[in-house]
């Protein structure tokens, strides 16, 4: 007998289990992979920003940032945390308008973000292309960490808190009685539990279906890469909101990790639906052109490794948090839209408190804006 079965030992399930255990709840984590963080957690680039347009996401990520920035102090484990900020350099009038229009809401929700002119941007992004540079935003308290180190450390901390891990095990059915959760049936066992948390990332819709619930989460593919480490020269993660001239990218981003590697990724346009995790030969030539265009000094950068992962996307770009409407004891923390790593600790801490006490830390109105019962087509996150 366990109190709660968390399905998915990933970017959301692991921190949720960690905070649930801290609330004194006995947690059993079920994951079909052989160990923690083997889904799309490890495909995350590691950027952590509270720079969003949606107040709920801003607040959740500020919460996450507190966990990331104090993790080493609390646990003694280095997770590659670096508070280098996020920078959105701007070359187009329309991007200036978009970013500036978000500032009041961001400030209202305690995000430290400023608009810098071109000279200010040149200082924080040494070597950036000057031609046409208008300015940009810098949110100095955003940062980066290593998803791999964070997954390993979370696993260790969870074990110390008594979380039970069940790997190589596939959840097949959520067992119910009188419209209440009573457990989970897997391909190996039946686990009695009062609550179930769906934190299954890209498989969230499949896992919801085993409880006869339908949620709008669909995976689409993104590729990323990493270079050899080099001397530290770049503090913030850089996001370029312009679509690429090649017609395949709607934006791209890159940064330097604490250990010196350059990490990079772009958002494909049109999106690439599906769960195929094999790399393509198309990705690197495209992003090489984009990075060189913005920062020519990167020409000798040695590229080491590439990978591909999926974003569990929702129609409005915001996550789905809360309790299922028609089944008592079933909770959802899904649809992170590629931001599971940065939102994970904030989401996990809020969901744990919500499950334990009936109330999240987040203001009720913000939490309800992420409800599974919301209208998914009413609005859209501007910085997806």
């Amino acid at each position, binding site marked *: 007998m366990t109190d709660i079965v968390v399905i998915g030992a990933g970017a959301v399930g692991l921190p949720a289990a960690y905070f649930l255990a801290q609330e004194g709840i006995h947690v059993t984590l079920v994951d079909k992979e052989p*160990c923690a963080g083997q889904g799309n957690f490890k495909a995350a680039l590691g950027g952590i920003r509270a720079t969003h347009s949606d107040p709920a996401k801003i607040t959740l990520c500020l919460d996450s940032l507190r966990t990331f920035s104090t993790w080493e102090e609390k646990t003694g484990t280095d997770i590659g945390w670096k508070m280098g900020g996020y920078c959105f350099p701007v070359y187009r009038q329309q991007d200036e308008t978009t970013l500036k229009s978000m500032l009041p809401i961001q400030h209202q929700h305690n995000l430290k973000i400023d608009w810098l002119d071109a000279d200010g941007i040149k200082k924080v992004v040494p070597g950036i292309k000057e031609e046409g540079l208008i300015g940009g935003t810098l949110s100095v308290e955003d940062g980066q960490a290593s998803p791999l*180190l964070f997954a*390993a450390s979370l696993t260790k901390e969870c074990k110390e808190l008594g979380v039970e891990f069940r790997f190589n095990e596939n959840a097949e059915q959520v067992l119910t009685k009188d419209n209440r959760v009573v457990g989970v049936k897997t391909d190996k066992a039946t686990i009695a539990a009062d609550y179930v948390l769906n934190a299954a990332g890209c498989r969230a819709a499949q896992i919801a279906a085993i409880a006869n619930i339908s949620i709008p989460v669909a995976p689409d593919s993104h590729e990323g890469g990493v270079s050899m480490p080099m001397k530290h020269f770049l503090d913030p993660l850089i996001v370029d909101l312009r679509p690429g001239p*090649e017609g395949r990218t709607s934006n791209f981003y890159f940064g330097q990790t604490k250990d010196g590697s350059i990490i990079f990724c772009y958002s494909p346009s049109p999106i690439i639906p599906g769960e195929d995790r094999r790399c393509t030969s198309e990705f690197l030539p495209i992003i090489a052109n984009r990075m060189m265009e913005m920062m020519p000094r990167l020409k000798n950068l*040695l590229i*080491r*490794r590439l990978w591909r992962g999926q974003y569990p996307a929702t129609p409005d770009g915001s996550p789905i948090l809360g309790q299922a409407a028609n089944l008592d004891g079933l909770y959802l923390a899904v649809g992170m839209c590629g931001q599971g790593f940065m939102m994970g600790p904030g989401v996990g801490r809020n969901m744990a408190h919500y499950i334990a006490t009936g109330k999240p830390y987040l203001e009720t109105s913000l939490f309800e804006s992420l409800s599974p019962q919301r209208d998914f087509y009413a609005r859209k996150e501007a910085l997806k």
Partner: protein
Amino acid sequence: MPGLAITVVDRRFDSSGKTAQVWVPWELGDGTVSVGQEVRLTGFEGEEVGSGIVRHVRSLKWMDKRKMVQLEVDSNLATEVAGIMIQDPEFGSPDTYDYGSANDQTMVCLCERVTKTDIARLVRLGLRDMNAIKAATRCGMGACNGKTCESLVRQVLMEEGVPPKSIVGYVKRPFIMELPLSALLKETKQ
């Protein structure tokens, strides 16, 4: 077995000649040996030579805290006995635990400088997925992208007694060697 290298052997008490009385000096405190107790005996080099029975513990004022202990021992042993061993034989014995790979500083991953010890420690914590080992140590994430260490990590797992079937191998990712960004530029621009 503290004491002087002098003992007194007295063969007068047993007319059959099977046992002899040996006096040894004894400098440990009261109660460490008692009359009637069977004790382990040591020779002049501290080696264990057999056992005997304490017959008498003599302690006089002029002897300060030193005592004389009379032991009944096998007659053949009498001249070899120099002291008494009261310490548990297990205590202080050389550590015979087999550290195997966990004490081996051989490099498994030269790129990221990961040793056999680093890997074996994680295996002993229960890790079986090489990707988890990779995540924790960076073994396989260096310039060679795991070409060298993959088989070595697998070998350490097997040396640690992990059945090959339960080992999960690395997820293979491009490239097989590092490439400069400029080599990947699309030529359409020229």
